[in-house]
């Protein structure tokens, strides 16, 4: 139960919640913390913050204070690789990455959680690369005091399948590169794909085992794939030959190599002719020629997810569609843009 008292009668009472002060452009935070005992010197400051009345809280058995509620929710929301401290600030608790990796948000559970009255949780986008210590989500109860039952129900929803928010470390893959195309293989033009893919893989913590070159010949591409896998590569990237021309035989080579699952086509631009296949547990990624021209493509959306242990199939490639349109800005600001943020 909450009781309102005049500020003049508040001296000696304990504050029921943090009292926020905002000085535009300068400061936003707690001017007074929950539990602070109000003294005469505070009255003028509190009046300047617009406080002429304060709350006194006397919790009923079935009621809960916002700080306790925030802790219950934070515990339930936090999955693997996410940590939090029971130090609510203005009723909020932040959840942070415990490791470098890829953020995984159970979007359905998050929506279900937020549909419960009087609770909220906001997160970074699903599949965002994060660093250890980075704030990835925050939660709070909205009123100062509320019933305990909805909080416990929200926590039950959040706790399903190990929490709503997790951070999955990226595995350090051993990658093989196959650059396809007669024009490169026969030295008509110089390859520019390998350095680009090499840089992206190293940025993600992978080791590039070997780069091989193959002409537009499905059988030679097959042999190159098998050779990389025999050498222990747990990730194979193939560039070129993904289009619709008669010379584009990379897909055929992948099938000949024994891929038991091939997903061709992604709902993202650039990168519509992207391919993901699997030979056993080894993912094969077909990178279309757009990867040469555009700084950021569908590869940048999918590769971290594969390294984070996600199995990419038809559904995952289809769901890229919402937010999958790169604006091709003169100066690329990815990942600080909308590209890939809708899935």
């Amino acid at each position, binding site marked *: 139960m909450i009781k309102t008292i005049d500020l003049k009668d508040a001296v000696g009472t304990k504050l029921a919640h943090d009292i926020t002060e905002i000085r535009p452009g300068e400061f936003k935070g707690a001017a007074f913390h929950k539990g602070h005992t109000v003294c005469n010197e505070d009255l003028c400051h509190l009046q300047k913050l617009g406080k002429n009345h304060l709350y006194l809280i006397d919790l009923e058995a079935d009621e809960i204070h916002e700080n306790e509620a925030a802790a219950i929710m934070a515990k339930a929301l936090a999955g693997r690789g996410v940590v939090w401290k029971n130090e609510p600030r203005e009723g909020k608790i932040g959840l942070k990455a415990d490791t470098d990796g890829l953020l995984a948000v159970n*979007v*359905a*559970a998050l*929506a*279900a959680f937020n*549909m*419960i009255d009087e609770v909220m949780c906001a997160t970074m986008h699903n599949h965002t690369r994060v660093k250890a210590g980075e704030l990835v989500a925050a939660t709070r109860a909205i009123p100062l005091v509320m019933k305990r039952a909805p909080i416990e*129900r929200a926590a*039950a*929803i959040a706790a*399903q399948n190990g929490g709503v928010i997790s951070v999955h470390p990226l595995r350090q893959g051993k990658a093989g590169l196959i650059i396809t195309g007669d024009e490169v293989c026969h030295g008509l033009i110089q390859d520019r794909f390998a350095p680009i893919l090499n840089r992206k893989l190293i940025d993600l913590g992978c080791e590039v085992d070997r780069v091989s070159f193959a002409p537009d010949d499905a059988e030679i591409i097959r042999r190159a794939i098998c050779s990389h896998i025999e050498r222990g590569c747990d990730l194979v990237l193939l560039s070129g030959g993904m289009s619709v021309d008669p010379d584009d035989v990379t897909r055929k080579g992948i099938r000949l190599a024994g891929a038991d699952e091939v997903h061709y086509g992604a709902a993202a631009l650039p990168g519509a002719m992207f391919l993901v296949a699997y030979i056993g547990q080894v993912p094969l990624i077909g990178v279309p020629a757009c990867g040469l021209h555009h700084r950021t493509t569908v590869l940048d959306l999918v590769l971290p997810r594969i390294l984070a242990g996600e199995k990419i199939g038809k*559904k995952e490639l*289809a*769901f890229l569609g919402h937010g999958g349109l790169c604006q091709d800005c003169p100066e690329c600001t990815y990942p600080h843009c909308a590209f890939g943020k809708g899935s």
Partner: protein
Amino acid sequence: MQDFDTLLKKSADAHGHLCPGQVVGVRMAMLGCRLIGLDEPTRIDQIKKLIVIIEMDRCTGDAVAFVTGVKLGRRSLKFIDYGIMAATFINLETQTAFRVISTEEARDLAPVYAPEIPEKYPRQIEAYKRMPDSVLFRVQKVRVDMSEYDLPGPTRKKVSCSRCGQVVRDNREVVQNDFILCKPCAQGAYFREAKEIIWPDMNWTPAQEEDQMFVGKALRHESGK
């Protein structure tokens, strides 16, 4: 209790079609029974312990009744017309009761749980299968004061209406000015302009049907067909 998929198929067959309400109803019944500690509500040793009060006459209600096996005639199924997607499951032996309420937010969450399905009803069916109970339902522990006249078992009381003579069972009569009346006489009825009639073949009995079948067989036998 059988598994969810089996129960859903059988319930949908009995109901006439598979719909989102069937999914919700089967799950509501499974949850309700679990809460009151009955794992085989249709088995003879549990059947008499269970009463279910259904608050809506929608597809969900049929599924709840199918899965739990409660029946109006056994007095294990009660219908309270609240128009609320809820049912209360009562264990008469332990005197525990839980009211399971289908959440409204589950409808809004269906596109999030089954985004790959564009059509509304198939999407709801799939989404309601995927949602955990915590999203699909709210549950209240409740106390239900059951009159002895509402319980299963033989008729406990019979009286006759002092106006129309109709026999009224189980304390459903109304006393007005010391006169015992049936509810239609005392309070008005859902029907009006009631008038007794006669109808064609009003002396029909099932025995006649058997006689006709016998005659038909005999005729076919005589004609060699």
